[in-house]
């Protein structure tokens, strides 16, 4: 019998784990829908805002946005539930919770089943004794892992619920809590109890404050009680001495060896707070049930309670039922009549009453023994049997329910997308005949070809015939040369020429020669020269690329082409807008899109395209470093001056050489690059296999914006965007 309990627990846990990949797959399926849902909602909102002249379309869009918001909620809830189920199935233990109002012997039962004693977890007649939700795990470690709140966590979890009940501002810091002003009394009894408790917590803050923020700590079991209990034993005081450390405790994991060691991977969870007047425990009582609990034992005892099934009992059962993780509540909750410590006849009455009211649905156990062995037999074995009976099918039902919800959501979204597209098509689309649109597209393509041909001719002239060097380049080179000249004449990397001489002489005194100083200066100078050219010229090349892009934009915006469809903005931005139009086209215009994107991405870079071609002077300068030089001069200072002159002259000559080479290289290649890039762009738009078809497709998508609105409104763009986003949404849950 005993070995079969451990085996059953193991089997349950292994079966669960095998479901985890399915749940993870479901999570992955849910993820792709989030963005399309957001995008579709945004597009439909934009469409509604953009179509004031079409009230039916506007109303439909608004309705659809509401529907999408509901889908978002459903999807979020589903994902959360799948995640919780995954966590539950990944758990390596079977968990049984012990719930019950104060004085039902819950802690006594836990003690006996776990082998703990009053020294670690107290149990007392009729008193709430455990203040912290403790997890007791069957383990040979025999130590407790206690996690403490941070200050912020403590204020939010422990204090804020009281403040909310009393209508007080939540303290943001411990100091604010320390000086929190509380009323002297409250009219309603319940509130006054809260006030008293909060006052007590505030006044005793010093007793537990230092535990806050200490993270997770491990204690011997003998030291445990002071952290999880309201009291510790004190011989002088009956009932013990009040302690407040529990207020700082977030959770406690007690690892101890259960008397019945054959139960294997089992955890018992003490669930304080049921029926207690502590708002900070109300929420925590059933928190994480779905993830944490497999079975809940609802403990009742006639002592201090009515024996019949009263309202209070039903309320507690309802609270537990609401948090049932899977299957029926009756599978999850097992009632335990604790006959220990009370008169036998009263326990029998309570059992009878309970069986009469609830016995048909719920399993009812009776705990009569006062020792571990007896209670294990009466409660634990039967509880585990219940688990073995219901958990596998409940786990399966839970997974199936999640998949069912996903399938249902998918169908709802698909139906929604079909419906929305149908209405949008009916209410929003251009009704011009295809033949008319195609003719317009053909004319636009021809007009584009004519104008871009002129641009190409001009570029060809500059690239292959005139080969005039661009004035902006010459001006930039003049500036670079002047700047470098000033650098070379005024001490290079030093403040002044004289400072350089001083340092050179000093360096010579140390090294006994100028070699190191010379080499360093040479290298710094070389790097400085290369950098100066690179930094200034990239902006010049960029300007030429922008001019080229601006010409393309102007061509597109021509009245006979796209009729001002692109915004008056920086050329690259205007072209990006065109790419956006292309992305939202109803049918693919990929060749056109690629051509425009390539023109946007066109970059002429000094370091990679020109610097290697004018590197020779730098290489020569680099080699010059190695040469030994004997300098003119009768003193070290004079020789340092000679060295400066030599280096500055060599630097100046190098700059001049680079300038000369750059002029030739840029003259030859700048317009070549632009010409080739623009020709590729032109070919793709005019002469590619796809171009005629794609111009027609583009016009079919945007005829309304181009012809009717003269590029001044983007109704068709917004409508197409909505279509695209709906399509993406439809595909996202496949």
């Amino acid at each position, binding site marked *: 019998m005993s070995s079969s309990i451990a085996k059953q627990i193991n089997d349950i846990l292994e079966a669960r784990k095998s479901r985890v990949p399915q749940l993870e797959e479901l999570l992955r399926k849910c993820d792709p829908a989030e963005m399309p849902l957001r995008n579709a909602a945004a597009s439909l909102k934009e469409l509604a805002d953009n179509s004031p002249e079409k009230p039916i379309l506007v109303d439909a869009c608004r309705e659809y946005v509401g529907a999408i918001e509901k889908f978002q909620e459903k999807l979020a809830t589903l994902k959360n539930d799948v995640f919780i189920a995954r966590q539950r199935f990944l758990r390596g233990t079977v968990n049984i919770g012990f719930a019950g109002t104060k004085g039902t012997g819950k802690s006594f039962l836990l003690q006996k089943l776990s082998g703990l004693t009053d020294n670690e977890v107290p149990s007392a007649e009729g008193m709430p004794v455990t203040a912290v939700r403790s997890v007791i795990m069957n383990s040979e470690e025999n130590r407790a892992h206690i996690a403490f709140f941070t200050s912020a966590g403590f204020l939010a979890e422990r204090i804020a619920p009281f403040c909310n009940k009393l209508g007080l501002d939540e303290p943001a810091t411990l100091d604010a809590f320390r000086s929190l002003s509380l009323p002297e009394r409250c009219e309603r009894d319940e509130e006054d109890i809260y006030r008293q408790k909060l006052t007590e917590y505030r006044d005793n803050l010093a007793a537990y404050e230092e535990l806050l923020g200490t993270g997770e700590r491990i204690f011997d079991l003998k030291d445990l009680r002071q952290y999880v209990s309201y009291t510790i034993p004190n011989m002088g005081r009956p009932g013990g001495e009040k302690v407040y450390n529990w207020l700082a405790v977030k959770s406690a994991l007690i690892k101890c060896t259960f008397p019945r060691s054959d139960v294997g991977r089992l955890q018992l969870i003490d669930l304080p707070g049921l029926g207690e007047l502590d708002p900070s425990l109300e929420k925590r009582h059933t928190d994480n049930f779905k993830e944490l609990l497999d079975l809940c034992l609802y403990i009742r005892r006639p002592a201090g309670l009515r024996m019949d099934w009263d309202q209070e009992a039903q309320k507690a059962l309802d609270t537990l039922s609401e948090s049932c993780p899977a299957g029926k509540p009756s599978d999850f909750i097992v009632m335990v009549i604790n006959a220990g410590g009370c008169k036998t006849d009263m326990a029998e009455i309570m059992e009878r009453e309970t069986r009469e009211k609830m016995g048909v649905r719920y399993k009812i156990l009776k705990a009569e023994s006062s020792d571990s062995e007896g209670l294990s037999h009466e409660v634990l074995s039967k509880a585990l049997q219940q688990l073995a009976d219901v958990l596998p099918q409940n786990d399966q039902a839970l997974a199936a329910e999640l998949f069912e919800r996903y399938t249902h959501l998918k169908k709802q979204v698909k139906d929604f997308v079909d419906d929305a597209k149908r209405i949008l098509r009916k209410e929003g689309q251009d009704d011009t005949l295809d033949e008319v649109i195609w003719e317009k597209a053909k004319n636009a393509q021809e007009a584009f070809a004519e104008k871009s041909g002129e641009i190409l001719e001009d570029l060809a002239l500059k690239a292959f015939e005139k080969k005039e060097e661009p004035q902006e380049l010459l001006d930039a080179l003049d500036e670079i040369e002047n700047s470098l000249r000033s650098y070379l004449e005024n001490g290079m990397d030093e403040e002044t020429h004289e400072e350089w001489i001083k340092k050179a002489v000093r360096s010579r005194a140390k090294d006994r020669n100028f070699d190191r100083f010379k080499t360093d200066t040479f290298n710094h100078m070389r790097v400085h020269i290369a950098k100066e050219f690179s930094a200034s010229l990239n902006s010049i090349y960029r300007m030429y690329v922008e001019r080229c892009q601006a010409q393309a934009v102007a061509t597109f915006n021509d009245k006979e082409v796209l009729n001002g469809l692109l915004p008056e903005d920086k050329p690259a931005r205007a072209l990006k807008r065109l790419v956006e139009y292309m992305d939202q086209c109803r049918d693919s215009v990929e060749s056109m899109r690629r051509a425009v994107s390539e023109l946007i991405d066109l970059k002429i870079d000094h370091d990679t395209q020109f610097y290697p071609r004018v590197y020779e002077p730098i290489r020569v300068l680099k080699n010059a470093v190695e040469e030994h030089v004997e*300098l*003119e001069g009768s003193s070290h200072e004079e020789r340092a001056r000679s060295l400066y002159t030599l280096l500055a002259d060599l630097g100046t000559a190098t700059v001049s050489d680079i300038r000369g080479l750059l002029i030739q290289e840029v003259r030859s290649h700048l317009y070549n690059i632009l010409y080739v890039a623009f020709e590729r762009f032109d070919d793709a738009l005019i002469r590619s296999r796809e171009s005629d078809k794609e111009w027609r497709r583009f016009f079919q998508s945007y005829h309304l914006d181009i012809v009717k609105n003269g590029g001044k409104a983007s109704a068709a763009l917004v409508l197409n965007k909505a279509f695209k986003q709906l399509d993406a949404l439809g595909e996202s849950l496949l």
Partner: protein
Amino acid sequence: MSFIGDFIELFDKNDDFSIGLFGPNGIGKTTLIAAMIEEFKAFSRDAERKNSLRLKLKGADENTNRKLSTRINDLKSGIGMGVFTTGTLTATAEHEEYKLKFEVEGRFDKNFIMHDFPGEWLNNPGKLEQLDVASWNVCILPVDACVIMECHERRYEQKMRVNLGIAQIEEFVSDWLSKRGSNPGLFIIAPVKCESYFDKPAVSLLASDKSLLLFNKVRECYKGVLDTVKDKKNIKGLYMPVNTVGCCYLKKPSWTKDGEFMGEFAISPMKGNNNWRPFGPVYIMFAICQFIRHCFNNGKYLSSRVEAFCRAVDTLEKLVDERDTEQRYERTIILQ
């Protein structure tokens, strides 16, 4: 009769053997003359000390010697200032004749003359007519290598051609050739200020070989002139780039708005590198000597003086061949 006299009588009907230099203002005609003479003198002194060569070159009159020493002193003081810019040296104001004579085996020969004249005359046909170009046995065309090599911008190209007087030079050379008739002549196109474009001898730490580029650019620029000379069987054509100063390199080229080249040259402050040290002009003198010998050999006219001269030129060639690699001049390109 002297060998030059023999030459003149045999091939020419003039009184003197004439070498003319033609080019615009500031190109360095006078400096080239000074370098050719002084370098030849130094070489022959050295050769006489080491060998038995007895071919000397001397100024034939006081005026020539004074002008030469003035030019050389100007050059040296320019070098001493540590920097050179275009136009540092005084321009020639009027037609100058440098009268020189060879001493062969202890006996002086008849004068030969180097003609220098103001660059402005390029634009003054009247003045040019005063020159008796028909008598020029040798025509040297000094070319400013820096101007040609550093003209990177299209906007200066046309102005550069104007400033170099290329059209006038084409016309002048054509005139010289027609006036020479079938008489033998030597035409040398001599790029000057070539220090920055050859790696031998290395004038600065940045020395690199750009000689082919220079040749191509000169050929492109003076295409008209070279086409005019081409196929003239009596004319020998040589391309001989030279370093006229030798211890400076172009530091910063710049151009005025009028397209006038303004070069700033650095004198190296490295020990031993800051002396006037032309490279190449002496070889132009050698080439002239070889040209004379060639003409004699072709004419089979060998008097004892001519034979002595030819022997001296042979020895000269031998000595040149024996020079160290660094000193050897390997820049000559035979155009025809």
